[in-house]
């Protein structure tokens, strides 16, 4: 199952070695070249569930290139002409990044960015649910910008996102679950052209993009036996030729204006995405292991969907006398989608070598899904130097019409919302800022059954610089939402409050902090179970985090570290853990340095020990700045 990662790892290792060699050689040779290269090795002491640890962190044990920076500047000075940055290349980290910048002149700027990620999911909830993910996603972005005109800037950009690897799922058939593997092959490409004005009183931009998404995922059975291992029927064949392709052109316009009296910003967006989906899917079951017969399902279907989206955002601020200002915000979004699916479903049952029974069912389905959202807010604000106050009204309307399939019921609903917001702040310069805001919103009718009828939100914040490098911040946010029992009986509360005390040496040589935070989320929602009886979905999170950290530099030795205690004592899924990170660096001669690091991660679930782990990673990194 790790074959999805192997090519990626190989590529990263090669890239790391090549870049390291390039950096060291070039650093020694070229005049005007500056850089930094750091490579090392990480070891890991494992304790507990490796699958659980990898699902949460996906860190490993191997050599790695921690960071590489190369910058070439002309001997006459000025900005870097060439800059290369790469970090976290190699096996131990699940993420890999690279950035390349080339500016041959002040007018031209070329950029390339790479981000890669290996995803791992390996939790075995139960023997009958063998879900697993081993895939990697690679994202490339490249752009070239011309800034040589006084009046405008033009940017041509391209990006690609590609996902490859395997996911293990289950397939339901003949009243049993069969393990299957899906080989992922998904690719998104997009090109865009952007034009921005620089000197007009009203700054404008226009952006046109064209994107395409292709998916050709392929199935295969894993073994053929059902998950219980007792069912005599086998999944003999599983295959698909389905290919999904989406074209996604989009256009965006923006206009911004600002002077002493007015501040106006507006953007508009339009896209029309088209899906084409076609191909065969087949499942063949060997009934009684093939001794009784064979049942085949064949789907030959072609689907399409079109979605038009128009959106606009507007904001205007008008500054009056005496520190007063008026703000208006408006948002509009309309999205209309139509879809259809046509083709043939075939069922063939028979015994090997004998004519069987074939049933066919034509498929002709159509649906639509239209959403129309509008919202506006009008606020007044007063800036009285040390004192600030603001308040206003907001309102919104959501219209939804949909029918998922031709036989299904149509749904149509309009939902209105309105509310107000009041806030104030006392700002005594750097010494102290105290601010608070209260927001209340009420909603009419429901689109989804868990939509709230009212939402109240209160935020309070205090930030203070106590002097001599000390800072204190206190914060609290309290949220309540509900809807009546005639709808769903939703009762939601979310409270978050915390404090942080920190000290920083003015020269940046040392610092320390202590922070404590409490998060409480409680959501109780009435349920109707499949049998018809009433029940309750009760989500209860009570999260405490306590963090202490610091950094110090003494001569050639520097140290930084943090230690974090996490505890969720809520009734839903109580757990606790430790997160510790420490790093000591000794600066050597001629820009060299040696770092030793250690990371501690532990996780304990109260209700089950299956996912618990205690992992310690430690390692050494050698770096050279030239």
């Amino acid at each position, binding site marked *: 199952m790790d074959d999805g990662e192997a090519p990626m790892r190989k590529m990263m290792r090669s890239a790391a070695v090549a870049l390291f060699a390039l950096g060291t050689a070039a650093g020694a040779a070229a005049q005007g070249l500056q850089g930094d290269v750091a490579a090392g090795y990480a070891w890991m002491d494992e304790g507990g569930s490796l699958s659980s640890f990898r699902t949460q962190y996906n860190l490993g044990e191997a050599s790695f290139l921690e960071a590489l920076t190369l910058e070439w500047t002309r001997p006459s000075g000025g900005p870097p002409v060439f800059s290369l940055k790469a970090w976290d290349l190699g096996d131990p*980290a699940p993420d890999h990044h690279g950035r390349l910048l080339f500016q041959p002149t*002040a007018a031209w700027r070329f950029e390339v960015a790479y981000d890669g*990620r290996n995803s791992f999911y390996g939790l075995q909830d139960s023997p*009958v*649910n063998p879900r697993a993910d081993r895939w990697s996603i690679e994202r490339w972005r490249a752009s070239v910008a011309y800034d040589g005109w006084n009046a405008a800037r033009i940017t041509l950009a391209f990006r690609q*996102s590609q*996902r490859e690897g395997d996911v293990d*799922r*289950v*397939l*339901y058939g003949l009243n049993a679950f069969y393990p299957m593997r899906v080989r992922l092959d*998904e690719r998104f490409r997009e090109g865009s052209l952007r034009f921005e004005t*620089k000197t007009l009183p009203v700054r404008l931009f226009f952006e046109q*993009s064209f994107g395409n998404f292709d998916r050709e995922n392929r199935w295969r059975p894993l073994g053929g036996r059902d998950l219980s291992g007792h069912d005599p029927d086998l999944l003999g064949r599983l295959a698909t030729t*389905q290919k999904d392709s*989406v074209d996604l052109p*989009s256009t*965006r316009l*923006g206009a*911004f204006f*600002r002077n002493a009296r007015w501040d106006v*910003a507006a953007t508009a*967006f339009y*896209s029309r995405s088209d*899906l084409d989906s076609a191909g065969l*899917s087949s499942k063949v079951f060997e009934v009684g292991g093939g001794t009784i017969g064979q049942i085949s399902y064949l789907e030959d279907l072609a689907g*399409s*969907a079109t979605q038009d989206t128009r*959106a606009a955002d507007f*904001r205007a601020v008008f500054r009056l006398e005496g520190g007063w200002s008026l703000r208006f915000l408006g948002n509009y979004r309309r*999205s209309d*989608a139509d879809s259809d699916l046509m083709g043939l479903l075939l069922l063939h049952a028979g015994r090997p070598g004998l004519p069987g029974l074939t049933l066919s069912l034509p498929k002709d*389905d159509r649906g639509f899904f239209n959403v129309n959202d509008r919202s506006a807010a009008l*606020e007044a*604000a007063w800036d009285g130097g040390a004192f*600030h106050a603001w308040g206003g009204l907001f309102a919104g309307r*959501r219209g939804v019409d949909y029918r*998922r399939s031709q036989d299904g019921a149509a749904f149509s609903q309009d939902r209105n919302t309105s509310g107000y917001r009041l806030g104030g*702040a006392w*700002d005594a310069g750097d010494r102290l*800022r105290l601010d608070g805001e209260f927001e209340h919103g009420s909603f009419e009718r429901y*689109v*989804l*059954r*868990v939509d709230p009828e009212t939402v109240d939100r209160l935020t309070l914040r205090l930030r203070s610089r106590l002097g001599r490098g000390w800072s204190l911040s206190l914060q609290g946010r309290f949220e309540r939402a509900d809807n009546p029992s005639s709808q769903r009986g939703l009762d939601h509360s979310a409270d978050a409050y915390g404090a942080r005390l920190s000290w920083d040496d003015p020269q*940046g040589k040392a610092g320390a902090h202590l922070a404590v*935070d409490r998060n409480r989320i409680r959501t109780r929602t009435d*349920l*109707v*179970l*499949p049998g*018809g009886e009433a029940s309750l*979905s009760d989500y209860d*999170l009570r999260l405490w*985090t306590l963090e202490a950290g610091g950094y110090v530099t003494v001569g050639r030795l520097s140290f930084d570290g943090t230690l974090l205690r996490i505890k*969720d004592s809520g009734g839903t899924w109580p*757990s606790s*853990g430790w997160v510790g*990170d420490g790093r000591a660096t000794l600066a050597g001669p001629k820009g060299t340095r040696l770092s030793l690091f250690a990371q501690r991660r532990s*996780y304990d679930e109260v209700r089950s020990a299956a996912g618990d782990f205690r992992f310690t990673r430690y390692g050494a990194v050698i770096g050279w700045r030239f």
Partner: protein
Amino acid sequence: MKARALLLIGGLALGALSLLAEEKAPSKDDCAACHEDVVKAFEQTAHGAAMARRSPEILARSCAVCHAPAPAHLEEPSTANVRRKPAEEACLSCHQDRLGSLALATPGHPRSGVSCTACHAPSHLVPPAAEPMLAAAPTNLCGSCHRAEAARFRLPYAHREGAGPMDCTRCHDVHGLSPRGRLSQAKDGGVCLDCHTEKAGPFVYPHAPQRLDGCLSCHTPHGSANPRLLVRRQVADLCLECHSRVPAFHNLSSARYRDCTRCHAEVHGSNRSPVFFQE
């Protein structure tokens, strides 16, 4: 007569020159008379280098543009007659491409008095903690105000990079002008689709919550007790909160029915199955 005229002209010229001299903003050399270490350090920063690259004149008057010293500051230096932190206008006088877009991307920031220097405010003497000129790494910087979100990253399952939380700016486009801003405007999942492109659709059979409120209908991206970052620990709890007419054969006392996505695997939308079975 000539001498009087010359005296008059000379006097006028001197007067005009003295007026001009009064109106001329101090250069960095004037500031360096007292703040030599700060001016020298600033010239070495990325910000100072960028100004010098555009024009030596911009660098020369940078102290005055950002800190707006009153004329009295030169006579009687005091923190009362100089702006210690630059005003938003000072930043926007050069960074015009940020004009207005920030307010659309994050309307809460200007409302709460969060201006450019709340994030881009490194000391001239201490190197910035992160690019571009950030006072701290994005995660710590945003987390200093958005503490609840920062704390949620401590839950067992979260968007992480390496051993730590993912940079906030990977998803949140504070200035609002990048392709991420475009995706946010498109909704239906917005910025999540920058990586999770396969969930973007359109689909023959879309799932209503995604079309209405995007990914956040079911997922809590900063952190969760659920490995798929769902807002509930148990999948069935989440699904049943909306779906109240589930056929009775879904016997929840049996393990096979407790995870709805075992069969209804294509919950983000399907091109084959109206009930989102595995495609």
